[in-house]
């Protein structure tokens, strides 16, 4: 076989990286080795191994660049370091501005990244979380979704869906734990299926994961609850008496396991778990109720291919179980566990939710801030470097090569960057607790050092480093030293002015965007508090009556409480305020024309419900306690339902609710029973006697503002006369405010970061102005000598900024409108985004421009021209 030469391009690679010192021998050896291999095992293998060998020879000590540095100038490195420090000191104002701007930008990005990472980490700690799905009850006819579903599903589902490997359920319940004479209400109590603990990966401290929820009367405690009730963790076998209110039963539970406190990034939160087998007698009949939604269900489906089969079989499942057309209004959505936290906007339920849109928005804001900060930094660095033409020229004259000049600039950038990063990280450590408080999370200092954060920071560092170093390094190398040394500085500034203006434009557009977005967010938040919700929420309190036994005595309690001084009005209702209104019935009316049932929300109320709420009956009349027929046959509907019917009056009008004919006696104003995210749906108000599922189980009281605490104490006393459940109440207006938690967090973050963006924009402007002023100092001085007034000079300096400003407003405002309209889509009640918002944003922006450049411009205009003219 004729021997060939080793492939040339691989040789080139070797020549490229390998230092001359080693090249000859290595290349020679490799070639010999190549021919030897070619003889032995053929050309193809030889070529392949040749490439491998060349790469394998890549050792640090053989790299060209490092080798040169070693030969050369360690001393120069020290000199560069010295220059860096001197430059920093000489331009102290610049340097501080520069470093602060960058540090603030990095700090903001860091904090937002932490927030986002925390949100994304939800529920991913479970083993094989990709196989776990949450069952969401779905009504295909009206699109509603809920996280609670009937316990009746599990039994028939198991044979029907053989693809489901495991199925576990969790049902919340209100219990009281009895400790001596004291009762403690536990709202973190849940009943769980026997396989719950082996299904999920919550950390077990003691007890057997597989069996701890098998036996009846078993209870599993978290670390916190074990410490709370026993003062120690080793409590397996101890007894804990509980009383279940809904079932009106007492149990003595035996502790069968202690687990670690539930991680905060779990959407499933509980403190105590009782074994589901305990409830057989109490709730066993619920397994027959296909409309009683009281459990959260999770299934494990290992194969994604099976998932499609399962989804396809869902309608058949309901049709088979409940009759032919059941699948029209019943369905299941299999929601992957990792999507539960952020993609559950449509799902109603009691579990805390995040919102993926906020993640995108926060990420976007972080990017903008970072962009603004980086631009600022690059801008200031390049501006500053153009003043160093002479220094670089001198270095070049003395024999510095291209690489050395580049190295010097990169080193300066690198050191300054490092300083900024150190400041940013230290500040992040200091601010993390307050930030956590602001966004209502518990983020630990250690979170700062998880690898995604470190990777983001490392990437950031490299990116800014490369960007900010490139420009000065390039420009400084382009010019001929002799020109600069002769005093022709224009070579340095040519062409860079539009670039700098462009950068400030981007930065300012970002600031305008943030200002206008903040205003829109604030306007929407104002709407939340000022919108006429149709009732008066102030001074209303809501007392939940969870105890089914107590509900029989509700009217007695009501009468006793009514006599307490300070209680202006009191009423009973089946839904708390605020309420998600889960009780949907089928509804049709006389003269509708077809037999289709429309969904309507049903609430049972009391005679004095609307007077207590201060809601108007706009048509017809309210319930009358004196009329016996009212309680049996009459209903009130709200305006939304009235509109559906298309009626023009109430003369002898009847509706059909789940097959029962009822006379409509009145129409009530649409009041917002829930947050303004959702519109008011059709509601029917009925009078329902105690003992039914929708019977009143809340008391709503209107209190006298004066002497509130005394009145509450007296109410507590009345309450204790009837119940051993602790007295629990909430202020209705506060409960409503809590529904906007996500929005309030968002507002705080947006305001904070808008501030940062504006700060960065000001920095950018100030630096640009002072840079231009310095460059044009001679020109301005000559103007002054020739008699130009201050005003003329100010206009001259300011003119270029007006253009930038206008352009940035034109870019920033429409973008903000676009982004915010998207955000507003999440609310049924939206504030109007009109020209007033934009005008105010533009005014704020212009005052920022004037404020930040005016001072600089005045300084220039007021300076003594001789100072600049006598320079040369």
């Amino acid at each position, binding site marked *: 076989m004729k021997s060939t030469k080793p492939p040339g391009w691989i040789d080139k690679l070797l020549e490229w990286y390998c230092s001359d010192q080693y090249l000859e021998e290595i290349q020679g*050896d490799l*070639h010999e080795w190549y021919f030897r291999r070619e003889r032995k095992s053929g050309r193809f293998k030889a070529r392949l191994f040749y490439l491998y*060998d060349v790469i*394998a020879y890549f050792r640090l000590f053989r790299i060209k660049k490092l080798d040169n540095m070693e030969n050369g100038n360690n001393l120069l490195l020290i000199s560069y370091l010295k220059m860096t420090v001197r430059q920093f000191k000489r331009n102290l104002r610049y340097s501080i501005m520069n470093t602060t701007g960058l540090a603030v930008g990095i700090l903001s990005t860091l904090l937002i990244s932490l927030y986002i990472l925390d949100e994304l980490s939800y529920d991913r700690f479970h083993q094989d979380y990709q196989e776990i799905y949450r069952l969401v009850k779905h009504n295909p006819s009206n699109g509603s979704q809920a996280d609670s579903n009937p316990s009746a599903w599990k039994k028939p589902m198991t044979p029907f869906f053989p693809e489901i490997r495991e199925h576990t359920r969790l049902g919340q319940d209100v219990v009281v734990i009895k400790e001596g004479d004291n009762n403690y209400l536990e709202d973190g109590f849940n009943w769980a299926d026997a396989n719950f603990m082996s299904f999920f990966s919550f950390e077990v401290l003691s007890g057997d994961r597989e069996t701890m929820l098998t036996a009846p009367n078993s209870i599993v405690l978290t670390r916190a609850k074990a410490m709370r009730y026993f003062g120690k963790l080793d409590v397996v076998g101890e007894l804990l008496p509980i009383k279940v209110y809904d079932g009106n039963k007492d149990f003595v539970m035996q502790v069968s396991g202690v687990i670690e406190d539930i991680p905060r990034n779990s959407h499933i939160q509980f403190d105590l778990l009782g074994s589901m087998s305990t409830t057989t007698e109490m709730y066993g009949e619920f397994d027959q109720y296909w409309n009683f939604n009281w459990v959260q269900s999770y299934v494990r489906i290992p194969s994604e291919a099976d998932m499609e089969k399962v989804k396809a079989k869902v309608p058949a499942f309901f049709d088979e179980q409940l009759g032919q057309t059941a699948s029209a209004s019943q369905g299941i959505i299999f929601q992957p566990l990792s999507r539960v936290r952020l993609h559950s906007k449509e799902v109603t339920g009691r579990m805390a939710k995040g919102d993926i849109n906020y993640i995108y928005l926060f990420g976007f804001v972080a990017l903008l801030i970072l962009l603004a900060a980086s631009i600022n930094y690059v801008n200031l660095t390049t501006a500053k470097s153009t003043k160093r033409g002479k220094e670089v020229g001198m270095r070049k004259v003395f024999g510095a090569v291209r690489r050395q000049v580049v190295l010097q600039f990169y080193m300066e950038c690198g050191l300054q960057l490092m300083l900024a990063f150190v400041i940013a990280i230290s500040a992040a450590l200091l601010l993390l607790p307050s930030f956590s408080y602001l966004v209502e999370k518990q983020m630990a200092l250690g979170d700062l050092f998880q690898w995604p954060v470190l990777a983001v920071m490392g990437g950031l560092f490299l990116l800014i480093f490369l960007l900010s170093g490139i420009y000065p390094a390039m420009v400084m190398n382009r010019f001929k030293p002799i020109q600069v040394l002769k005093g022709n500085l224009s070579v340095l500034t040519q062409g860079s002015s539009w670039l700098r203006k462009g950068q400030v434009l981007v930065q300012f557009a970002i600031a305008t965007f943030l200002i206008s977005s903040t205003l829109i967010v604030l306007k929407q938040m104002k709407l939340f508090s000022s919108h006429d919700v149709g009732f008066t929420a102030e001074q209303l309190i809501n007392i939940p009556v969870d105890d089914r036994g107590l509900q029989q005595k509700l009217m007695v309690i009501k009468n006793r409480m009514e006599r307490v001084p300070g209680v202006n009005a009191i009423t009973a209702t089946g839904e708390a305020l605020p309420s998600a209104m889960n009780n949907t019935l089928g509804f049709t009316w006389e003269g509708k024309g077809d037999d289709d049932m429309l969904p309507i929300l049903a609430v049972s109320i009391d005679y004095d419900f609307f007077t207590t709420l201060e809601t108007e009956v706009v048509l017809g009349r309210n319930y009358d306690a004196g009329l016996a027929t009212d309680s049996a046959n009459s209903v009130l509907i709200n305006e939304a339902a009235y509109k559906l019917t298309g009626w023009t009056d109430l003369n002898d009008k009847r509706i059909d609710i789940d097959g029962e004919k009822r006379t409509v006696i009145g129409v009530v104003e649409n009041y917002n029973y829930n947050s303004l995210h959702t519109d008011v749906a059709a509601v029917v108000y009925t009078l329902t006697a105690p003992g039914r599922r929708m019977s009143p189980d809340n008391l709503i009281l209107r209190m006298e503002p004066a002497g509130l605490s005394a009145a509450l104490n007296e109410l507590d006393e009345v309450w204790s006369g009837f119940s051993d459940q602790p007295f629990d109440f909430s202020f209705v207006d506060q409960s409503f405010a809590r529904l906007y938690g996500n929005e309030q967090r968002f507002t705080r973050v947006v305001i904070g970061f808008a501030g940062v963006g504006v700060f960065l924009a000001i920095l950018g402007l100030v630096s640009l102005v002072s840079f231009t002023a310095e460059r044009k100092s001679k020109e301005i001085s000559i103007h002054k000598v020739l008699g130009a007034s201050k005003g003329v000079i100010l206009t001259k300096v300011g003119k270029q900024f007006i253009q930038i400003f206008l352009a940035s407003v034109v870019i920033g405002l429409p973008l903000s409108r676009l982004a915010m309209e998207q955000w507003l889509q999440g609310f049924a009640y939206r504030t109007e985004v009109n020209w007033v918002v934009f005008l105010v944003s533009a005014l704020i922006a212009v005052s920022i421009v004037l404020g930040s450049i005016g001072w600089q411009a005045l300084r220039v205009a007021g300076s003594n021209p001789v100072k600049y003219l006598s320079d040369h």
Partner: protein
Amino acid sequence: MKGTHLGEFEELVLLTSALLINTAYSVTIADEIEKQTNRNVTLSTVHTALYRLEKKGYVESYMGGTTQDRGGRRKRLYRITANGFDVLNQAKDIRNRMWSMMPDYKF
């Protein structure tokens, strides 16, 4: 002393370079090791081992003649130093001593 330890592969390279008087360089050494031990070696590992041995003072190098395969490039030849020979001997002695203490196994 730090850095004088002789690794297994280094010992092999040192031995081989001692065997190949006047012709020891990476290619011949790698070749010889492959022949003697029947294991695959890459040139760069041999080279790196030689470089380390030279740093430790067990071999010394000089630039030598060329062959046609090398396209006229000179090669770096290695020869063992007195220190290197001592270290090989020590290694051998340690092994011999331990072998002499070996109990009489019958497998």
